[in-house]
């Protein structure tokens, strides 16, 4: 029972962060602040959802897979936001 | 309405949208996008038919599922060849627009 409740709480919290990130993406004025809203919220949101679903996993191997997925998204997300930010930075230097 | 019917009708809508885009968009890259949507719709119809054929403990009929995999790969190859043609055309100084008048719009001369 406690497992189920933890799962629900974690996934709902994760969804909240996703929602916040999406609102930030739409509402914030410039690329850098959008990026800031998106990455923070999404990394945390996905982490919480992974945590919640891990409790429902059948066996440690499946749980491990969820952790790996989260780590992969973290790596690619941070890399991509670095690249976008770098490009914005260079462009602003030019103009 | 059952799940697979939803996706089947969605496939029909995609076919219509793709067809419209393919005929009316003047830009060849947009035509290519429309072609891919059209293909996606066709594959969803496959998916509907596969799902309806669930039997013998399989969640769907594996034959159409296998055909879709073949279809997706062939569609990718088509897109790659078309993109290469588009880029080469842009380099050769030809205008991509010339390659893509709406098929029905040109007088036969």
């Amino acid at each position: 029972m406690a497992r189920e409740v933890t799962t629900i709480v974690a996934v709902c919290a994760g969804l909240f962060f996703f929602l916040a990130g999406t609102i930030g993406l739409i509402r914030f004025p410039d690329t850098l602040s959008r990026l800031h809203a998106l990455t923070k919220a999404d990394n945390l949101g996905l982490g919480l959802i992974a945590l919640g679903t891990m409790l429902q996993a059948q066996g440690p191997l499946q749980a491990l897979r969820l952790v790996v997925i989260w780590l992969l998204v973290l790596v690619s997300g941070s890399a991509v936001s670095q690249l976008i930010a770098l490009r914005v930075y260079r462009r602003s230097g030019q103009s | 309405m059952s799940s697979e019917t939803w996706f089947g009708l969605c496939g029909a809508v995609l076919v219509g949208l793709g067809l419209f885009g393919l005929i009316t968009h003047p830009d060849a890259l947009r035509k290519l996008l429309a072609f891919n949507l059209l293909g996606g719709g066709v594959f969803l119809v496959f998916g509907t038919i596969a799902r309806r054929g669930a039997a013998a403990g399989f969640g769907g009929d594996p034959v159409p599922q296998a055909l879709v995999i073949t279809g997706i790969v062939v569609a990718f190859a088509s897109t790659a060849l078309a993109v290469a043609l588009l880029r080469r055309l842009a380099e050769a100084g030809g205008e991509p627009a010339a390659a893509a008048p709406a098929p029905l719009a040109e007088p036969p001369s």
Partner: protein
Amino acid sequence: MNLSPDVDGGLAVLIAGLALWTIAVRDTFAAVIGFVAFGLVVAVAWMRLAAPDVALTEAAIGSGITGGLLITAAAGRRRRPPPQPDGRPRGIVRIAAATASVLAAVGLGVAVLSLPTPAPTLAPNVALHLGLTGLANPVNAVLLGFRAVDTLLEVFVLLLALLGVWSLAPDRFWGGRPGAAQRVDPHAMLVFVARLLPPLGIVVGLHLLWVGAVAPGGEFQSATVLAAVWILATTAGLCDWPPVGKPRLRLVLVIGTAVFLAIGLAGLVIAGAFLAYPPAYAKLLIVAIELPLTLSIAAILGLLVAGPPSREPRR
């Protein structure tokens, strides 16, 4: 998954909406982004249609590599916009196109609704003969067993598409390397990722190939992951595309189809028919086909993204 059909209805509407956006939006780049999102949602739809093999393929090829290809093409156009086409098609063409499209969609919808119940299916037939292929994944049994000749011809088609792409090169570049010359910045973020991911990607790719015998996965999905690793590494500048005239590369490209054909022809002698496998060796032969096939497909997919040779070969 026991979600109600309403969820699938919502998914279907979302897919149609993304498609509409892709068709209607003015900016080409935005349309491409719409298409990539479309592909990802369609992959979810394939999971809901109980077709995980197709979902993997759609996510990897239909959305992933195709999306990457189209994004690159659209981005190239942003830098150097094409001359504006002389006006949109005339009104009458648009009306005719709209009529034809609506007719096609409605006719297809009617046909979908009048599909017979109970639906005709080959699933029991596949189940009955699955054991003879030595595989437990029915989709791969169809691709490499019952309908192997389709797959054989399809890989040959992929090879031809690559030759077609190469043939677009100007004469002086024939035999040279595709893509622009790379300059590596060892501290760049992309290089870091490109060093981090390949080992994992290769493990995942080989895993997909291996489990394909019993679970979702197989040569196409595996090859796509391997190709993606290759594309990432070359984009980051860690390695360069090979010259297209290189004999060893040609061998890698051809070997999948060649081995497939050879084992198929051997079937004429050992099993009495082209592409027949004796049941005792079926799984062994299929693995012998799959390994070189995955290598060839991965190489072809990667080079299809790389495009025609664009640098002069070293003589």
